[in-house]
């Protein structure tokens, strides 16, 4: 096994630890676990960054140098990286560790899928001609920042719904530590806005790439179509804020539905009839 994949599979365990600590913290309410969780997430992020840079170097040493963003394995790793990166910024900005238990598990799952699924090729491969494009790099980066922000929004949506279960008497004690629902709603909205902007940029850069590679900026390929579907769902969600009575619960549900659509855009599309799948 090459060194970068070894590092990256260790990162998987670090994120697993971090996710577990976040959950401990949520259940027990003890900040000790929270600090452990945050620091291990940060350590994981640093190790992962190093792993990615190493992988980049290794590809140059092999004479086929390209950014580590070119196949399913590399995109899953990058997905986890963006989730943790964005999440830690959010945690630092809002000075609260509540969301971690609902977000870091996504990063862990993505890493675990990349590292342990037999269907995912971990080797560094050269770029086939269609993928030799700088637009593709900006496409992947913008898309995954978008996906990560929407993953965070989905985690917040879950928290909102759980918080709704809280009753005066006999409810799970950890719900008390959650932020108020208005705050969760506001945070969901901000995450969706960031996600929506990146998603738009992702679609635009993807179209530019398609235009230079395939001769048409839009050809209703399933992957393209699903990115549009996702985009429409979030556009509907942003507008629904302006309807009376549409704040809160329905927004939370839409942030979850929207993220299911994101996941389908990412993975599910390969099971549909289509011309080309990029990864």
């Amino acid at each position, binding site marked *: 096994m090459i060194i970068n994949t070894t590092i990256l599979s260790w990162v998987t365990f670090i994120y697993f630890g971090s996710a577990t600590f976040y959950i401990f913290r949520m259940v027990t309410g003890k900040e000790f676990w929270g600090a452990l969780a945050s620091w291990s997430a940060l350590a994981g992020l640093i190790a992962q960054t190093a792993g990615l840079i190493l992988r980049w170097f290794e590809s140059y040493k092999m004479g086929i140098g390209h950014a580590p963003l070119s196949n399913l394995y590399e995109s899953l790793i990058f997905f986890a990286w963006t989730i943790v990166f964005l999440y830690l910024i959010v945690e630092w900005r809002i000075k609260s560790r509540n969301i971690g238990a609902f977000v870091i598990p996504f990063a862990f799952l993505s890493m675990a899928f990349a590292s342990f699924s037999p269907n995912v090729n971990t080797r560094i491969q*050269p770029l*086939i*001609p269609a993928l030799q494009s700088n637009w593709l790099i900006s496409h992947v980066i913008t898309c995954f920042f978008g996906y990560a922000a929407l993953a965070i929004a989905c985690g917040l949506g879950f928290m909102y719904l759980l918080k709704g279960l809280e009753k005066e008497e006999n409810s799970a004690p950890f719900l008390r530590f959650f932020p108020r629902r208005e705050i969760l709603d506001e945070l969901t909205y901000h995450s969706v806005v960031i996600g929506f902007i990146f998603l*738009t940029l992702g679609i635009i850069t993807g179209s530019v790439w398609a235009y230079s590679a395939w001769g*048409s900026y839009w050809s*209703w390929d399933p992957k393209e179509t699903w990115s*549009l579907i996702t985009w429409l769902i979030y556009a*509907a969600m942003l507008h629904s804020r302006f*309807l009376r009575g549409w704040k809160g619960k329905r927004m939370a549900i839409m942030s979850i539905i929207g993220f299911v659509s994101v996941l389908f855009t990412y993975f599910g599309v390969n099971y549909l009839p*289509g011309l080309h799948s990029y990864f």
Partner: protein
Amino acid sequence: MLLSFLSSLKLTITLLIIIAALSILGTVIPQEYGAGESFTRMSPGLVKTFRSLQLLDLYHSVWFIILMCLLSLNLIACSLKRFPTSWKLFAVTPSLDRARPFKDLPPDNIVMIEGEQNETASRVEHLLMKRYKRFRSKDTDTATIFYGEKGPYSHFGVYIVHASILIIIAGTIIGSLWGFGGFVNLAEGESTDTVYVGRKKSLKKLDYAVRCDKFCITYYDNGMPKEYRSDLSFLENNAVIFQGPLLVNHPVTVKGIKFYQASYGTIPGGRAHMTITREKYKATTLTVNLKDSFYLKEDGAKVTIQRVEENFMSMGPAVLLSIHSSETNMQLWVFKDIEKMKHIIPNLLQKVPKFNPGLFKPYYFKLNSIAQTYYTGLQVSYDPGVSTVAIGAFFIVIGFFFTFFSSHKRLWVRVDELEGKTRIMVSAQSNKDPVGLEREREYLLRHFKKGP
């Protein structure tokens, strides 16, 4: 009635969701002009029903067009309805001596300081003028009132976003009305001025011809393709007007029409490089294609290339020659690896005389190599709507920044006297971004409090 229906946000959300749902349907039902094979797997009855409902070409069906029209109308109606309000918020400064902004102010929006009223007022004015481009003040009998605002442009962000969507839709319409997308397969050496266009593959003649001079693939060490490359020449009235290589991700534009490297393939029957020797004469080397003929000068025999095989009977590359002369008619196989074959089967030439490269005396034929003839698959497209779509895409992003990252902050400050002290009241308003507004309010109050 119709207008209020068309301008309602409920309609917007309904339309966005229906368009999303229809798009999902389009990825589930195999589309007629998309993936060919899965389409044919449906039962004929189902195909007929789907076709009559235009579900087999959903994204160009009347349903889709109606929805896009409705969405556009919705956007236009909604924008027209709301624009006057936004314009007022942008352009009109409220009259300053209204009491309302200062009614029921929470106590932390009020600071009382020692210090003379006029001096305080000029200090407040100084600070506000620095921070707010749009700034006004007014003196009343007892008080000085200041008004400042920031980011009034943020009201237009949404219009920029929505107008961009209309621009993008317009660009796609321009493209579909006046543009075309086609393809053509061109063998090396061939040229054409006609391409297949549209989903129905009708013929279209271009103003010039395109010729494929050469196609080649290079590979990485592990066998994955590294580069597909076609060397193309474009000819008008038999004169070359443009010549250059075409690579994936690097289209070539000639007279506004773009050519893309889309696919490639090989043509059955290749090209052979041969050497012919005759005792005591110099050898000649030549390249021949399938079905080519040539004459052997000395005795007028005609040689025709009957077959060109990559790997004939598992014995490697071979060509079949048929030779007509006044004396004889014969066929003979020329193998590239004949020496090796003779080595393995020592009496091969006695057993199968047809395999003897020296059978037609006094000539000796030698096959050096066989080259594949490739054809290149070119995507040919012309889309006059692209720049419009690009402009829309650019402005939608600009619009997002106005909508999401700027806000219209309005600030009223009133300086007057109360119980021997100077009183400063601050009232702040914003159309969004309550957090930023709070920060601004705190900043100002802190500075007002400091005193002279």
